[in-house]
């Protein structure tokens, strides 16, 4: 039941996209996100869409798998769309009681929906092709300059790694505890809101206890291996830029050039 969540999931693969340095991928993702917010005309989307389609094709992740992430936010997108259709001033399209839909609203709504969907696809492509560990390594490396002003970058990255590592474990455990309490006649599905909130206690307490126990064991295990934080720590997997990264960055620059031109086209 809990395992159906796909957002932020990794799709195993061996493609060029998977092999890119995580730092490159993070930077490109940020650049794409910013550019998506700056696009003002429909034509501006075209280069991004083509670029994303090419990336999906290259990465070997099934197209449907990428799009499945959109399902989770379908309601949000729909509400945004409806608000835009009805709340924008302009030429009247039709009237529905006190609500007026406008042509301008329709076009704006379409624009918004496309933008949100593309934002989601861009970010899910990053997590689909990068393992959580690589992702945190990349973030740590990118934020390194902040160490100069005493920001504990390494510690934050380590915390993130551990949190990501334990999400599946804790979900599995939740599932198990829920089953065990249902076997004792616990009922999570019916009753008033208060009753249902109370029914969570038999799940949350064992879950917290086991999370604390795990944290404790992990801390001891880390200390036994002389973990001291950042100082003098080396990495088994070093991050290296390769020609692939240069190529990717170049491609993105070309993309932005095209986008700049496309933005200029007037319909």
């Amino acid at each position, binding site marked *: 039941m809990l*395992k159906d969540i*796909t957002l932020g999931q990794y799709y195993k693969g061996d493609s060029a996209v998977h092999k890119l340095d995580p730092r490159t991928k993070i930077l490109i993702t940020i650049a794409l996100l910013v550019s998506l917010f700056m696009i003002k005309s429909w034509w501006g989307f075209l280069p991004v869409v083509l670029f994303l389609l090419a990336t999906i094709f290259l990465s070997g992740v099934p197209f449907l798998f990428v799009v499945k992430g959109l399902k989770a936010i379908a309601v949000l997108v729909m509400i945004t769309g409806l608000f835009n259709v009805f709340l924008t001033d302009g030429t009247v399209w039709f009237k529905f009681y006190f609500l007026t839909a406008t042509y301008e609203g329709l076009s704006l709504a379409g624009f918004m929906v496309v933008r949100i969907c593309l934002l989601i696809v861009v970010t899910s492509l990053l997590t689909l092709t990068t393992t959580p560990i690589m992702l945190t390594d990349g973030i740590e490396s990118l934020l390194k300059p902040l160490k100069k002003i005493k920001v504990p970058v390494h510690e934050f990255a380590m915390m993130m790694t551990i949190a990501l590592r334990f999400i599946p474990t804790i979900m599995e455990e939740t599932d*198990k505890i829920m*089953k*065990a309490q*249902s*076997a*004792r*006649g616990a009922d999570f599905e019916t009753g008033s809101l208060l009753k249902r909130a109370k029914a969570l206690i038999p799940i949350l307490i064992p879950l917290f206890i086991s999370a604390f126990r795990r944290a404790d064991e992990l801390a001891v295990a880390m200390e036994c291996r002389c973990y001291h934080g950042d100082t003098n720590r080396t990495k088994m997997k070093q991050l290296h830029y390769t020609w692939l990264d240069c190529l990717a960055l170049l491609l993105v620059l070309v993309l932005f050039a095209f986008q700049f031109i496309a933005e200029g086209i007037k319909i």
Partner: protein
Amino acid sequence: MIEIKSLTHTYKNNGVRTDAIKDINLTIPDGKITAIIGHTGSGKSTLIQHLNGLLKPDSGDILLDGISIYDSKKISMKEVRRKVGLVFQYPEYQLFEETVYKDIAFAPKNYGCTKEEIDERVHLAAKAVGLKESNLQKSPFELSGGQKRKAAIAGVLAMKPEVLVLDEPAAGLDPFGREKILYEIGKICSEEAISVVLVSHSMEEVATCAHKIAVMHGGEIKMTGSPSEIFTKVKELEQMRLDIPQITKILNELRLKGISVPEDIFSVKEAANWILKNIPVNKGN
């Protein structure tokens, strides 16, 4: 009595399919201990989670005293879960109340028992698993591992189930605690007239207490029978990565040496008695 009829379950996770159990047919008789044995990943836990409806099968049926447990007109899922008490592997991780007493009372409370009834059931359940009265007012987290497990089993027993299903009840306990838990389970079966389903991956554990053994391998039931029937099939068992009890191995060695040992000796005690009686001891050299 529980009848499992061609039960099949496939786990589906993001397109990955695992055939956990395939076409299982098994009858669990009343008032007896039925052991389900198989190595890691053979589908034991999956199978028993069907017995009280926690998992839904892809096909097949389970009859509880002749009524399908999926027939919501005749029996509610909640009632199925009461009649078939399921104790998970490492059940001590499900304890959550302030006191052991309250934790054991959780199930009867869910089933709407009165205060007096709950009190009576808690004390009976604690006694049945051999948990001391003085432990009832303690926090569950003050108990030892073995005591915690007993408390968790009592928490299921307090529902007064007709069938008690235990997933590896002795896992992770020391040899003494293991023997004690198995002894209490045997006692519960005979004294409370509850049928017991015992999941294990060790023959040694169930050899002496089970009346019926079902051997699972790769999601299927490969053989069923009484312990004496099962332990004669040493070759097949070893192919399924299962070990027969050590004492049975010793007796088999004796058989190889030409000594005709009866086929139905399984406990160390019986074997020792037979050897003392039938094999002459050379005193001196």
